[in-house]
C-alpha cells in the first residue's frame, strides 16, 4: 500500500520509508493521485509566542481542507489530532494555543462525520503515556527536526499497528439475539412476564446491564434483530409491562418471533435488511441452536454464550472489541438502525426453507420413553402444571391425580432426551386413556419448549402410536384445546396424519386416526422404550 504523508515536522522515524512518501515541511502543493491512502500528521511546533503559534495552528485547518478537496473521495484520508507536545505557558491563563488545538480537533471530527473516507486518529492516545520531556528530546529534535523523540519510535510503531488494525477492521453490522435466557433469565412462555428475571437482584441485574449495553451498541449504529421461538403476544406483553425491559420493540430493526427454525429466520432477516450474512453475529444461549446456525450458515459469526449471567458484561466487552469496534463512528452509522427499520418495512417477506435433516442427524439424539413411576411422577405433574406452549390440552394434574388415573387403567409415559450437547432430562409426557377395547384417547401431550424444534415431538408421538399399533389398538382419538399460549400446536395432529373430524365454536379440534400401519419415524433418533 502506497501512502503519502502530509507533515510539518520530521516523522520518518515514526512511519518509516516502506511504501511511504512525505510532503515537504508544511507543504501542501503536492497532491499525488497514484497513492492508496493519505495521512495527515502535523505536530504543534514549539513557540514561546502563543499568539503567533495559535495563528499558525489556525492556518492548518485551511491547508487540510484544501488537500481534502483535491484527493479522491474514495481513498482513505487518516488525520491525526493535534497534540501540544511541549507547551510553554508564560501565564497560567494563557489558553490561546489550547483553544487553537481544540478548534482544529473539533473540525477534524466534523470532517470525519461528513466524509466517509476521513478517519480521525486520536494522537493523544499515544502521547498521553509520556511527559513533555520524554515526548520531546531536544538534542535529537535540533539535529533532526523530529519533535517526537526518536527513542519512542518503537513504541509508536507498535501503537500505530494497533490503530491501523482498528482502522481496517471490517465491522459486523447486525446482532441477532435470542430472547429467553439470552436477554433475560427464564422462559417467557413458562415463567410469565412477571416470572422472568430482569433487573433487581442477581441474576436479573446482570441482564439489565447487558440490555443497557446492547442499547448503546444500537445507538452507535449496530443493527439489532430478534430471532426467538416464542409467542409474539407474550413478548409484546413483556415489552409493555416489564419495567426493566431496556430493549424494546423500536430498538430492533427486524423481528422473527415464531416457531420457524432459526436458519430460515436469519436468512429472512438478511433478505429483509439487505445485508450479507457475513455481517451477522448470532447470540443464543442454546448450544443446539448455535450449532444449527454454525452448520447451515457458516458465514454467520456465532460466539459461545456465557454460561453464567455474571459473565455477560465481559462477554459484551469481547463482542465489541472483536466484532463491533471501529475507530470512529459517523453520523450515518448512528442513523443506520432507523434506516434499516424503514427498509425492512418496504420489503416484502419471502418464505425460505432449510433442509434440516442433515443437521438433526448430526445431533445424535437419544430418546427414552419411560412409563410413569414413583421417581418421575413429581416431574410429570410439574410439567403438566408449567408447560404452556407445546401442550395440546393444557390439563393440569397433581401427583395424586396421576396416581388415580393409573389406577383407572390409563397409561402415562414420560420422555427423556439426550443429544451431543447434553442431557435435557425428562421433558415430555403423554397421557393415554383406554376408551374402548380397541380405542385409545390421548388425554394430554406436552413437551418442554427447550427440546422443541428438533422433531422430537413427532418421534415421541410416533413411537407411542407404534406401541399401540403393536398391541392391536385400532383407533386413536385426540383433542386440541386452544389456549392463549399453545397456538403453535394447533395443527400438530394434522401434520402427524390424524384426521380432523370437527372444530367446535371455541376452535377446539377433534381428531381420529386409524392405526392400520406403522408410523414412520426418522432413523436419526435412537429411541428406547423402557
Amino acid at each position, binding site marked *: 500500500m502506497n501512502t503519502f504523508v502530509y507533515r510539518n515536522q*520530521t516523522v520518518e522515524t515514526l512511519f518509516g520509508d516502506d511504501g511511504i512518501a512525505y510532503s515537504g515541511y508544511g507543504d501542501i502543493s503536492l497532491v499525488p493521485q497514484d497513492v492508496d491512502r493519505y495521512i495527515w500528521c502535523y505536530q504543534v511546533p514549539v513557540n514561546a509566542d502563543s499568539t503567533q503559534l495559535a495563528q499558525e495552528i489556525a492556518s492548518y485547518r485551511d491547508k487540510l481542507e484544501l488537500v481534502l478537496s483535491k484527493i479522491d473521495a474514495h481513498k482513505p484520508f487518516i488525520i491525526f489530532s493535534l497534540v501540544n507536545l511541549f507547551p510553554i505557558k508564560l501565564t497560567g491563563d494563557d489558553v490561546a494555543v489550547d483553544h487553537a488545538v481544540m478548534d482544529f480537533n473539533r473540525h477534524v471530527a466534523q470532517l470525519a462525520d461528513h466524509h466517509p473516507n476521513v478517519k480521525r486518529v486520536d494522537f493523544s492516545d499515544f502521547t498521553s503515556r509520556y511527559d513533555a520531556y520524554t515526548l520531546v528530546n531536544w538534542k*535529537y529534535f535540533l539535529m533532526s527536526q*523530529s519533535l517526537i523523540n*526518536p*527513542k519512542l519510535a518503537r513504541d509508536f510503531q507498535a501503537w500505530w499497528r494497533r490503530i491501523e488494525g482498528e482502522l481496517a477492521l471490517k465491522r459486523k453490522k447486525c446482532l441477532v439475539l435470542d430472547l429467553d435466557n439470552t436477554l433475560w433469565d427464564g422462559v417467557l412462555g413458562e415463567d410469565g412476564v412477571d416470572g422472568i428475571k430482569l433487573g433487581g437482584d442477581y441474576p436479573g441485574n446482570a441482564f439489565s446491564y447487558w440490555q443497557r449495553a446492547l442499547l448503546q451498541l444500537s445507538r452507535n449504529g449496530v443493527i439489532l434483530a430478534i430471532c426467538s421461538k416464542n409467542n409474539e403476544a407474550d413478548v409484546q406483553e413483556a415489552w409493555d409491562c416489564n419495567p426493566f425491559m431496556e430493549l424494546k420493540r423500536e430498538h430492533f430493526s427486524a423481528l422473527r418471533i415464531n416457531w420457524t427454525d432459526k436458519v430460515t429466520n436469519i436468512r429472512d432477516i438478511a433478505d429483509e435488511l439487505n445485508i450479507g450474512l457475513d455481517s451477522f453475529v448470532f447470540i443464543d444461549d442454546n448450544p443446539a441452536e448455535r450449532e444449527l446456525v454454525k452448520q447451515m450458515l457458516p458465514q454467520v459469526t456465532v460466539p459461545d454464550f456465557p454460561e453464567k449471567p455474571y459473565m455477560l458484561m465481559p462477554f459484551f466487552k469481547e463482542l465489541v472489541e472483536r466484532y463491533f469496534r471501529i475507530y470512529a463512528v459517523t453520523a450515518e452509522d448512528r442513523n443506520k438502525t432507523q434506516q434499516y427499520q424503514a427498509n425492512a418495512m418496504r420489503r416484502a417477506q419471502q418464505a425460505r426453507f432449510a433442509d434440516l435433516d442433515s443437521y438433526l442427524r448430526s445431533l445424535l439424539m437419544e430418546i427414552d420413553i419411560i412409563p410413569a413411576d414413583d421417581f418421575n411422577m413429581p416431574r410429570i405433574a410439574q410439567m403438566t402444571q408449567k408447560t404452556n406452549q407445546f401442550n395440546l390440552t393444557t390439563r393440569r394434574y397433581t401427583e395424586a391425580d396421576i396416581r388415580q388415573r393409573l389406577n383407572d387403567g390409563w397409561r402415562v409415559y414420560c420422555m427423556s432426551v439426550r443429544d451431543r450437547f447434553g442431557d435435557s432430562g425428562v421433558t415430555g409426557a403423554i397421557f393415554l386413556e383406554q376408551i374402548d377395547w380397541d380405542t385409545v384417547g390421548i388425554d394430554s401431550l406436552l413437551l418442554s419448549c427447550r427440546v422443541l424444534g428438533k422433531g422430537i415431538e413427532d418421534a415421541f408421538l410416533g413411537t407411542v402410536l407404534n406401541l399401540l399399533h403393536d398391541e392391536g389398538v385400532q383407533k386413536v382419538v385426540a383433542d386440541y384445546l386452544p389456549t392463549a399460549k399453545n397456538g403453535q400446536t394447533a395443527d400438530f395432529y394434522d401434520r402427524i396424519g390424524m384426521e380432523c373430524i370437527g372444530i367446535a365454536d371455541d376452535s377446539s379440534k377433534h381428531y381420529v386416526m386409524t392405526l392400520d400401519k406403522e408410523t414412520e419415524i426418522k432413523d436419526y433418533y435412537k429411541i428406547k422404550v423402557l
Partner: protein
Amino acid sequence: MNLEDQVMEIMRSVFGIEEISTDISQKNCERWDSLRHLTMASELEDAFDIELEPEEIAEMTDFSRVVSMINSKLK
C-alpha cells in the same frame, strides 16, 4: 558478545541489512541516511547507557569511528 558485535547487531536492525562488514560507512551504505544515523545513535545510547553529544554523533560516520567513540565513552 563483544562491543564490535553489539554495534554490528544494532546497525543490522537499524539499517535493515543482514550482511554488514567492518568497513561500512555512511558513504558506501545507501541505507545509512541521516535519519537512520540518529536512530542508530539513540539505540547506541540506550544499549551502552551513554550520552552522545550532537557533535560526537556527527563524527560517527563509519564503523571504526562508531566503535572508538563508544570505547572512549565507556572509559
